[in-house]
């Protein structure tokens, strides 16, 4: 048994968890921004999928760095659709998000056929040079970048005027508006930042983690990110811990399948853990007060 324990918490599993952590945490950080600004973004998963496709495509065209940028831009553009629908047209946030997820089922396949002549996979793409970290082995430079982005997100949300305004739009848009905060602008910003993060997360997944785009490679990570967001109490710091939990579960799943029980059901583990987490913690957290509500600038109460 100690052997198993060592493997469960050993270097290999930690390294694997770290790799799984990056896309999850990036997507969750994005989620923090849109939810804090008052907009629910169920479409994060779809934005990640677009990120995986455009990341691989961009990397093939111009190299891995440009690939990551392309992924972030693609995510932002898809997020723009969500922002227009929810902020400007005040469509139900969930409906718009679901629509984006549906768009993300078929569009990448169409794009793949156009770009690669086949629907489900891209050729191998160039990757960033790895960094050697003693003990963990070679890791992608996106891993430290993610840590930097996490700190930056914490700083921007908690310590800057912009962050305060963004949060006020999600807590009490009416009061924010009376104080001169342009709620619509803040909400657009929240959703677009979220899209950029989700796109980057997808780009990391295809370029750095796998090395190519494959249909269905995202495996619902966007939805797990939503659960991580809730468990992390809508904060960049809390999200880091909740994403670590989910990433470790994912690493554990891989480990179990490789070395212990090769049972198809084990692959459901991350999703079951997500369900358990939702069941245990959903009531104990405090979402932004006005999240999910439509807001019409200047309208009577």
């Amino acid at each position, binding site marked *: 048994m100690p052997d198993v324990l060592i493997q469960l918490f050993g270097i290999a599993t930690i390294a694997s968890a770290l790799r799984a952590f990056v896309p999850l945490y990036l997507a969750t950080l994005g989620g923090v921004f849109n939810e804090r600004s008052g907009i629910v973004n*169920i479409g994060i998963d779809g934005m990640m999928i677009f990120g995986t496709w455009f990341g691989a495509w961009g990397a093939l065209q111009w190299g891995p760095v440009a690939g990551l940028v392309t992924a972030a831009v693609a995510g932002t553009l898809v997020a723009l*659709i969500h922002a227009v*629908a929810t902020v400007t*047209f*005040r*469509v*139900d946030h*969930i*409906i*718009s998000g*679901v*629509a*984006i*997820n*549906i*768009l*993300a*089922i*078929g*569009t990448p*396949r*169409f794009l793949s*056929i*156009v770009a690669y002549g086949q*629907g489900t996979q891209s050729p191998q793409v160039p990757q960033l040079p790895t960094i050697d970290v003693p003990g963990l082995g070679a890791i992608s430079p996106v891993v430290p970048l993610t840590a930097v982005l996490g700190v930056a997100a914490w700083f921007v949300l908690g310590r800057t005027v912009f962050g305060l305004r963004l949060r006020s739009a999600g807590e009490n848009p009416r009061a924010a508006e009376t104080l001169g905060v342009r709620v619509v602008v803040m909400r657009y910003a929240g959703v677009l930042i979220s899209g950029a993060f989700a796109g980057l997360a997808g780009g990391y997944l295809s370029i750095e983690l796998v090395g190519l785009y494959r249909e269905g490679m995202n*495996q*619902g990570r966007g*939805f797990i990110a*939503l*659960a991580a967001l*809730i468990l992390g109490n809508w904060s960049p710091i809390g999200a880091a811990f909740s994403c670590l939990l989910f990433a470790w579960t994912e690493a554990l799943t891989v480990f179990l399948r490789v070395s212990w029980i090769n*049972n*198809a*059901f*084990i*692959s*459901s583990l991350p*999703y*079951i853990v*997500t*369900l358990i987490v*939702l*069941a*245990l913690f*959903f*009531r104990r957290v405090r979402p932004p007060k006005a999240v999910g509500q439509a807001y019409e600038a200047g309208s009577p109460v």
Partner: protein
Amino acid sequence: MKVEERPPAPQPEAEPEVAAKIPFGQRLRAWALQLLAPAISLLVAAVIGALVILVVQQSWGDVRDVAGAMWSYGLFNRNSVAFILGRATPLIFAGLAVAIAFKAGLFNIGVEGQYAIGALCAAWVGYQLSAPTFIHLPLTILAGMLGGMLWAAVPALLKVYRGAHEVISTIMMNYVANGVLLYLLSGALKDPGQRGAIAQQQTPQVESTAQVGSMVPFFNSIGFDFRGSAPLTWFFVLALVGAVIYALTVRRTRFGFELRVLGTNPRAAEPAGIRSNPMILKALLLSGAIAGLAGLQDVLAIDDRMKLDYIRGYGFTGIAIALLGRNSGLGIVAAALLISFLDRASTGIGLNTDVPKEVTYILQGVIILTIVIAYEIVRRMTARRQLKEQHERA
């Protein structure tokens, strides 16, 4: 949009029956407005589809080819009508499942997993049991519904007792369903009759007493000329009956009324004596049970067994259909036929043009995005007109 002549508006002081006597012209206009939204959205989808083709292929000829193929192959190919009706069948069930949850203000994104588990249960009862058709078939269908219900029960209970949002939990259940399917179809429920490395991950064939027949002979007897292999079965009739029952339940029963109250104004529900938790539970379970029907046509009438490549996206398309059909029974049938037509047309695009047939996926996505925005615009137009009328009256 300016409207010159306006029929006399009902007086605010008049007795309540006036509401039923809205002038015909005004009602007609309301109807036209309702149809305006889908029309706008289809138009926008067509424009965006054309733009995508233009960007990708850079020729107007291809746009024309695609439109031509969609029209001539999608509608007038020998088997197209059979395909459209047959492929619409699971979509109608999926749309109804999503819609009944929508009515209660709930999002059942888990139809995908629910119909997979439902189909698995039905297949199991279908090949395990041997009984005369009039017992076996209803039991099999019931098993499908129970399977879907079981899979919806987890998110429903989590929602009621733990407050977990159903969107995330139903999606998680979809992934868990994938795992269950893979596990059972490569293990306990795998067809033992096959050997070798190419063994399919599928169940044994369901007994003939649990199979549902093709509707092609019936259609051919009334003058159509469909090929025997067309996927049109008697489940289509069941789907239509389902849509009628759905419409009547939502509009005419107490249960339907309570669902709608919960969906439109949850805060008014409790004071009106509607206990929301039992209603949430009922709505989601019912939604799961209907979802369980979506996969049955494939298992009991087309493949006659449950296969692993099962996840066919009916659940997500069902969401699009419920939105497109505005959660009305008739609307859902119409929307399912439309999506099914797009599916058939994509075959035509693949056969007759140089454009990848997956372009219809983009059309689907755009349609559902634009439809919600179009409904919102129409709603605002109506609201603005009502406001103006009120002002003029004052």
